[in-house]
């Protein structure tokens, strides 16, 4: 065990451990700052770490690229770096990825949003009234597809009372239940959010009613601090685990091979 790790290294190691051999994981390309680190940087670093350790057959669909070469990463992502990125395939149009999603071709996806509730319903569309919102967000992208069709969607969000709410203002992506109806009753099959990786704790949906449950606290974070950062109370297990620290092997790979220039785990 190596206690000297950054919070982002901890999350990277956690992401890697969710990825199984032969998984195909969808990662987006957009955003900047902390949102980039959560939605792109940590997922790519975690996927690469999993590939190097226990999941040699795992691969990614990053933006428009299937099985991109993740061996190095430019400091600034401009269009031309994406244009020339090496990959196994760059499908001709976005319908290809949509079809892969709809036929359940993905095992893992990474999703974030402005709001999430206890059943994992996610809002990336609008805060407040939909027709005249307090904050208009980006829309929905393929996040409804991720929650509808991907086997194990991973939610990446920093804990915050404004984000972890009792009821989201707009259900962009349906989680495990909504308005008293389960996702099956709503017409959806297997799937829905699998785990929620935050800056303070890991949460999952391993409860009888598939509502959010605290899985582990990051080292040094108290239960009170987590509950204070949430607008609803998740199920708390009798024994609260501590999120396992990254191993020294994991840290060595992250620091020396995967992200030596701290491009992925920047902020």
């Amino acid at each position: 065990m190596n206690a000297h790790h950054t919070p982002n290294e901890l999350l990277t190691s956690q992401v890697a451990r969710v990825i199984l051999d032969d998984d195909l994981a969808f990662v987006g390309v957009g955003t900047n700052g902390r949102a980039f680190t959560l939605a792109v940087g940590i997922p790519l670093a975690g996927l690469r770490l999993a590939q190097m350790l226990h999941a040699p057959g795992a691969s990614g669909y990053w933006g428009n690229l299937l099985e991109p070469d993740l061996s190095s990463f430019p400091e600034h992502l401009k269009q031309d770096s994406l244009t020339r990125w090496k990959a196994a395939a760059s499908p001709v149009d976005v319908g290809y990825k949509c079809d892969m999603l709809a036929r359940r071709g993905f095992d893992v996806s990474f999703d974030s949003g402005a709001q999430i509730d206890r059943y994992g319903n996610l809002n990336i569309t609008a805060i407040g009234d939909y027709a005249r919102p307090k904050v208009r967000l980006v829309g929905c992208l393929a996040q409804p597809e991720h929650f509808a069709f991907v086997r194990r969607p991973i939610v990446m969000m920093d804990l915050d009372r404004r984000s972890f709410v009792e009821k989201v203002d707009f259900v962009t992506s349906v989680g495990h239940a909504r308005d008293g109806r389960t996702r099956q009753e709503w017409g959806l099959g297997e799937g829905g959010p699998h785990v929620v990786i935050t800056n303070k704790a890991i949460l999952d949906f391993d409860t009888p009613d598939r509502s959010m449950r605290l899985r582990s606290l990051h080292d040094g974070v108290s239960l009170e601090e987590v509950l204070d950062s949430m607008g609803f109370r998740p199920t708390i297990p009798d024994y609260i685990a501590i999120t396992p620290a990254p191993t020294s092997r994991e840290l060595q790979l992250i620091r020396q091979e995967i992200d030596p220039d701290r491009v992925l785990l920047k902020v």
Partner: protein
Amino acid sequence: MKSKLFSLDDALAPIRSGSSISLGGSLLRRPPNAAVRWLIKNNVRDLTLLTWAATTAIDLLAAAGAVKRYEGIYAGLFNFGLAPNFRRRVQEGAIEVRDFSETAMVARLRAASQGLPSLPIKTLFGSDIALKNPEQIKEYACPISGEQLLAVAAARSDFTILHGYVGDEFGNVQWPLVRDSDDVDQMMAAASSRLIVTVEKIVPHEVISRRPALTYIPGQMVEAIVEIPYGAHPAAVDGFYDEDQAHLEAYVEASQTDQGASAYLDRYARQALDHSDYLRLLGGLAAVEKLTVEREDTWQ
């Protein structure tokens, strides 16, 4: 074959206020921004816009107060944050929004390209995207399997405007071998009623016909083609030039207020005489050529 080569003025003249327009491009790749500035300069308003991942094009039109309704999967500025003007107008209640997820929008475009009124998806059950839009998303039982499906309405529009790489005078538009994904322009072309394409460069038909597999928009479907170098500026054309980071940052800064956005539009869209004048305002070809990337294509 007949020439379909027009000036931007002549190509866009049929577009009236109140029209519905599908706008091509995705994120910071190939939004038809020169055409968008023309629409703003010519005070075309009350537009219904259908888009994929829209950035600069929709935000400029929103800044001009020209957008009545939006249907798409994303409106933001990619790694430059939210779309400031679009966001402000939506929050004011000035733009009617219909959000669609990616499979839904793809199904809508494919339906239009197949002459069908709708196509089914299985995605949006229980989502507010469907619950708040019962006119365009309706449930039915598959007559083959009995499964419940959602039919989404075809994405029809009066006009479609795309910005492409190179084309010939007959409207055939090609992509380079080394490119990013098309995302959605080919689908939008197939779904179009009246299609106007601006391209970086017009090349002889003989150059196009040597590599027919690279044509992604056949001239058959094109009403007008216009040569507009740097026509996606301040966004990028993959394989040709990168996004103009400094310009985009200045745009976001100006767009923090209505006044700032309006001053930006006055300068770059309304007072600029035409696209050449726009390039002159940016510092001329020498300035934009700094954005150029190494090219690797078959037309040179």
